[in-house]
């Protein structure tokens, strides 16, 4: 590639030449609303371009910002999944930090071992005891909510200081769009196809953040890459707590959700705007909605953009709306006030972009 190539302007991270520059000041971009997210992100990329992720896959957005927050002193454990097969295909890699893939169902336990090793090696003087090394699991929904569930629970229960980031594309997308424990009701997947008798997936999304919080770990959050400032703020908080942390990130999947690639971020915005996905955090048991939605859009706005819901009948869409209404009511009850407002039918599904 010529030096004037497409990525010439993206500084590739080289150890010993690390400069922190102002790249994003979230609070300036979102004045008045997100002061808590007011910190700088470095220009340098630790998640490097040239990966094999699908066009408009938002895994890249999550991984890139995650590493901008965590920095070079980070070890990434990447269980089997889309991110793993698309970013480290020998002899290439997209990670500027140490990275390991062991198997599918053991992100939590591999991370436990690495965290324990770092602790022991610090005590024996092999690693500088003053150096902070982030141990980060970057796992999909299958590797977290299904096959990796036990390892995850064990890691939480034992209190390893590990940041667990779950990118949730709501199915086994890497193996060809099979349903997982986080596939939502009504979605058509290859193992829960929309048939004449059964309208796609008939189960509801496993509440991973609530399950993580039930372990009593110090920090749990949900995030959405359409709201980068909110997401990076949560990465930062997760990094700073003493103990395990869990961040459940919704991730749009072009082939799995079947939307036009240009809508990758739009569909994620709609997830939050419809109340399908609520961005919140649970810090030491304290529940807080970080992205209030004063007026909600109807869930059909989120569903109709995606091929996986195209088969749904109006009554099934209404059923999904009712489930969301019930969840929103519960969230408002927990918070003690209306943080997520009612559905406003006058809101257009796609807001005009400036």
């Amino acid at each position, binding site marked *: 590639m010529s030096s004037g190539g497409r990525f010439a302007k993206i500084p590739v991270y080289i150890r010993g030449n690390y400069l922190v520059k102002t790249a994003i000041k979230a609070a300036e971009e979102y004045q008045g609303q997100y002061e808590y997210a007011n910190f700088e992100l470095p220009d340098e990329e630790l998640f490097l371009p040239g990966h094999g992720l699908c066009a408009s896959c938002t895994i890249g957005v999550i991984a890139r910002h995650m590493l901008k927050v965590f920095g070079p002193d980070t070890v990434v454990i990447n269980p089997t999944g889309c991110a793993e097969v698309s970013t480290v295909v020998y002899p290439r890699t997209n990670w500027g930090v140490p*990275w390991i*893939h062991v198997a599918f169902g053991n992100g939590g336990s*591999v991370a436990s*071992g690495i965290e324990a*090793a770092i602790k*022991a090696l610090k005590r024996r003087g092999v690693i500088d005891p003053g150096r902070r090394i982030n141990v980060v699991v970057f796992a999909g929904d299958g590797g977290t909510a299904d096959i990796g569930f036990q390892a995850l629970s064990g890691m939480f229960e034992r209190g390893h200081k590990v940041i667990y980031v779950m990118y949730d594309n709501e199915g086994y997308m890497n193996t060809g769009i099979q349903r997982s424990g986080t596939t939502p009701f009504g979605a058509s997947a290859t193992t829960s196809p929309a048939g004449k008798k059964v309208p796609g997936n008939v189960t509801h999304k496993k509440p991973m953040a609530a399950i993580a919080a039930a372990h009593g770990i110090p920090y749990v959050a949900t995030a959405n890459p359409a709201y980068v400032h909110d997401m990076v703020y949560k990465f930062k908080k997760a990094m700073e707590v003493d103990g395990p942390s869990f961040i459940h990130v919704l991730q749009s999947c072009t082939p799995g959700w079947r939307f036009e690639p240009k809508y990758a971020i739009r569909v994620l915005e709609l997830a939050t705007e419809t109340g399908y996905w609520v961005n919140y955090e649970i810090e030491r048991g304290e529940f807080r909605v970080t992205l209030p939605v004063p007026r909600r859009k109807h869930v059909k706005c989120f569903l109709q953009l995606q091929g996986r819901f195209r088969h749904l009948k109006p009554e099934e869409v209404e059923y999904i709306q009712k489930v969301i209404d019930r969840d929103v009511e519960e969230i408002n009850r927990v918070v003690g006030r209306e943080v997520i407002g009612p559905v406003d039918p006058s809101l257009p599904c796609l807001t005009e972009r400036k």
Partner: protein
Amino acid sequence: MTAQALAPVEKKVAQRRIALTGNHAVALAVKMCRPEVIAAYPITPQTPVVEKLAEYVNNGELDAEYIPVESEHSAMSAVIGASAAGARTFTETSSQGLGHMYENLPIAVGMRLPIVMGMAVRTYSAPINVWGDYSDVMSMRELGWIIYIAQSAQEAFDTVIQAYRVAEDSRVHLPAVVAYDGFWTSHVLQPLDVPEDEEEVMRFAPITRSWVRLDVDNPAQLGAVGTPEWYWEVRWQAVEALRESQKVIEEVDEEFGKWFGRRYGLFRTHRTEDAELVVVTYGSLYGLAKKVADRLRQEGVRAGALRLRVIRPWPGDQLKKALEAAEKVFVIDRAINHGAYLQGPMAMELAATLQRPVYSALATIGMRAIDSDMIYEAALKVLKGLWAPNQTYTIGLRGGYE
């Protein structure tokens, strides 16, 4: 136990004689090797090992991170993670526990991680049976681990120390398992010699940290996707390393002998030089096999015994040499190779090695008790031609092939 030691050798290291069960001997050896991370999940009959190690850690006798994981799958995963991070590691399992961690076993090989695992062997369910036979460790043969089978508490102790030294050698970088009889070795109190000064063990087997690991100053990616264009070459390095490890195993064993006065070789032999019949077995059964050989000798039969110790890498050339002159090789296997031409796994491998038929029998399956008379009777059947080669018989099975 002392019968195993070679004739008087000069010992560099002062030792004291104590009595321990096989499991506690392993735990003590592990403690002396100072692992930095131990991941443990209980399963009979290995549990006393991880209990003892937990005691050492909680009493401050061993400075290690002890991860009481929620399953064996996680035990192997955690030691893979820890080893990849540069730590000396240990875990131990048996039977179903091995089955549960199975998918991670070849991964440790592909990543070239010098994990040492103990195994108090136990048969596989069903029916559920917690007792010792070698079904579990035999199911590891294709994976690329170094496999030792020890006969006694002393040998299990010594072999753990040797295994660390071999696994972490830069010519090897492979995981190693040290197997020994569940119950008959793991739970039996035996005398053994251990170094008075534990530091000697660390001097003999210092942590090399020479393997590729996760280092933030020198980022590496472990466990990349290996496409058909690359997988074979990468995996082949582990194949070659295992083959080459034999030299290191022998070298380490020899040096261990010089330091501690005991060495074992790749296999042990007893009166095989001129033997017409050699009884081959492994684990604690060797004592009975030797007794049978001695009894047959008294009766004028030139009999010997051979005990397999390092079965991976398979010491084919050496075994061939040792058994070349024996007219009849009678292999008593302690695990079932279901549906194979010979149902004894080691009998199959020896037949392939020797390029001629061997006599095969199964014994101690599910820890069915056996005594030297039963082996003697079986050996007589082989000698008299009542048992044919190329066929698997059973010793001690009701309604079996006897």
